[in-house]
């Protein structure tokens, strides 16, 4: 066990998989010598060579398309999209192609590919280095969309994702890369990629959250307990698509009050789907409206600091929403 931040844990998960399976490879922009703009692939090219850690041209459709082609010819590619904001050019290859190979060929062609993409607001990142793109991908059967928020889970789930025979979009909240630290197991382990996680048990309200907001929620939950005697259960979806509805519904039924929070623009967000699942499946247990917390429906986080701060969901917003719901 060693204390690692999210970035290190992901790096290690990747490196371990590459060591134990020579078909695992990395491709993307600046993943080689530079080790990625966030340094997630740091040192991998030195260890595994220029081909297994390949710098590609600046072409996301190519990156994902080539990864599909590699995956049907014996490889297990891990494609890096430099920023989630730049995944749209690969949209077709992801939703029309990778996600459908298996189904459309009636089970003949698997696509064991993983796409890593850093998402989320960072100061100065502005409209195009800040986005939460998950909702774009969460209406696509055949695709898995993972968004673990803790180092150990991220490491384990990345390993599972690489081993999984399906295309997986693996989202990493870049603001938490160095912020979130945890003891992480060193040897081989993997974490299921289809199960939500109850991080904290509680009885008064449920908060479903991921990414940076999950960390806000966990902190706020402590505060609620301490300052207001409100007992908060915190659930992390882990897999945004497909959703582990059972775990979410079990918690909703237990507390009867649900807040779904994320950093994304609120309308059309994954939070909406989670809220809809609760509104249908836990209706008889609900004691309050299913609340959502998210960014306003403005494009994305602005560059100027005061504007950005107004845009993002802050700790206080999470606290206020919790209190509001608990008091409903």
């Amino acid at each position, binding site marked *: 066990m060693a204390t690692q931040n999210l970035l290190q844990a992901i790096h290690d998960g990747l490196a371990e998989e590459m060591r134990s399976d020579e078909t695992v490879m990395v491709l993307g922009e600046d993943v080689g010598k530079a080790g990625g703009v966030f340094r997630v692939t740091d040192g991998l090219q030195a260890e595994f060579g220029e081909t297994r850690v390949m710098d590609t041209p600046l072409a996301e*459709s190519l990156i994902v*398309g080539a990864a599909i*082609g590699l995956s049907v*010819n014996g490889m297990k590619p891990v494609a890096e999209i430099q920023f989630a904001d730049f995944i749209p050019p690969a949209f077709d290859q992801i939703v029309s*192609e990778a996600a459908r190979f*298996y189904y*459309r*060929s009636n*089970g*003949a062609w698997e696509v064991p590919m993983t796409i890593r993409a850093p998402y989320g607001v960072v100061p100065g990142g502005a409209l195009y280095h800040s986005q939460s793109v998950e909702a774009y991908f969460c209406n696509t059967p055949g695709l898995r969309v993972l968004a673990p928020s803790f180092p150990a889970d991220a490491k384990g789930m990345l390993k599972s994702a690489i081993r999984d025979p399906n295309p997986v979009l693996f989202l990493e909240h870049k603001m938490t890369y160095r912020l979130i630290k945890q003891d992480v197991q060193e040897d081989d382990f993997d974490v299921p990629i289809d199960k939500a996680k109850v991080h904290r048990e509680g009885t008064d309200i449920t908060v479903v959250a991921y990414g940076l907001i999950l960390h806000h929620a966990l902190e706020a939950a402590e505060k609620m307990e301490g300052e207001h005697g409100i007992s908060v259960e915190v659930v992390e979806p882990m897999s945004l698509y497909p959703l582990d509805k059972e775990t979410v519904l079990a918690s909703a039924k237990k507390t009867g009050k649900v807040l779904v929070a994320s950093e994304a623009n609120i309308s059309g967000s994954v939070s909406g789907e989670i809220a809809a699942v609760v509104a249908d499946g836990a209706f008889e247990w609900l004691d309050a409206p299913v609340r959502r917390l998210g960014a306003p429906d403005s494009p994305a986080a602005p560059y100027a600091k005061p504007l950005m701060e107004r845009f993002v969901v802050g700790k206080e917003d999470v606290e206020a929403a919790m209190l509001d719901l608990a008091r409903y």
Partner: protein
Amino acid sequence: MAMERTRVRHEELGLDGPDLIRLYRGMLLTRRTDERSWTLNRQGKAAFVVSCQGQEAAQIGAATHLRPGYDYIYPYYRDLGITLVVGMTPRDQFLSILGKAEDPSGGGRQMPGHFSKRDLNIVTSSAPIGVQYPQAAGTALAFKMRDEDGVVLTGGGEASTSGGDWHEAMNMAGIHDLPVIFLIQNNAYAISVPAEKQVAGSIAKRAEGYGFPGVEVDGNDVLAVYEAAKEAFERARRGEGPTLIEAKTYRMRAHSSDDDDRRYRESAEIEEWRLKDPIPRFENYLEEHGIMDAAQRESIDEEIKAEVREASDYAEAADYADPESISRGVYAGGN
């Protein structure tokens, strides 16, 4: 090549009589299978048909160089001829156009023309034009990484070069000298849009800009395509990288069974191209060189027609997949 020949063309290519007959059979089998598909459509049995008539020379001439089950193929929806050469069958085609459970391409899930067969390394294809190109580059890269001499054949119509995926793949193939062959069947139209509104400059010439050879060939001349493809496959196997082949040809039927091509092209043009039909043209060559006479032609055709009829009957009698199956196989490894 206008210069005087001392040997006839096929001999120069190292092809003997049986080789030529094999090429011819491939073309004719493709044509007859395609024709039968239209019949099934007209009879109301097949909801959709997309045709390769006119393009058999381009397809057979190129696909003959494939090693089935080893090389990879990323075909496009008109590549019936390519798939038949490597081992798909008329039965597979009819099962597909009728959407039956045994359809190897997708068990009735996919539209006709969206070929797939795992054991033949025909990678599952789909409708969005051009998506196969980056995939083909990736598959070629895997061969190269493992130091294998596998080749990837991919292609599409001339309009499939207009989208970004084609360019991105050409660039990647050029950078890494990948063993991939881009076979563009320029059949003059993309549904209704004529090639001059589709393609600026020249497709074949573009290859040079990516640092590898591009050749334009008469796509209705099976030997010309054979020759260009031979060089391309050899080059790829030697590890020298990609080749682009632009086969100039013509789509003899409407775009698909849903299309009425009278809206956008003159029948005179179609008639003109009918005279260049690659199949009679090759028949003439074979007769001229004493490789096949009328009686032989007749018997080959009879044989093929019987095979096609039988395949069609089989497919008509075959079952649909269980409707409940639509929810199965969304994810690999147990839903």
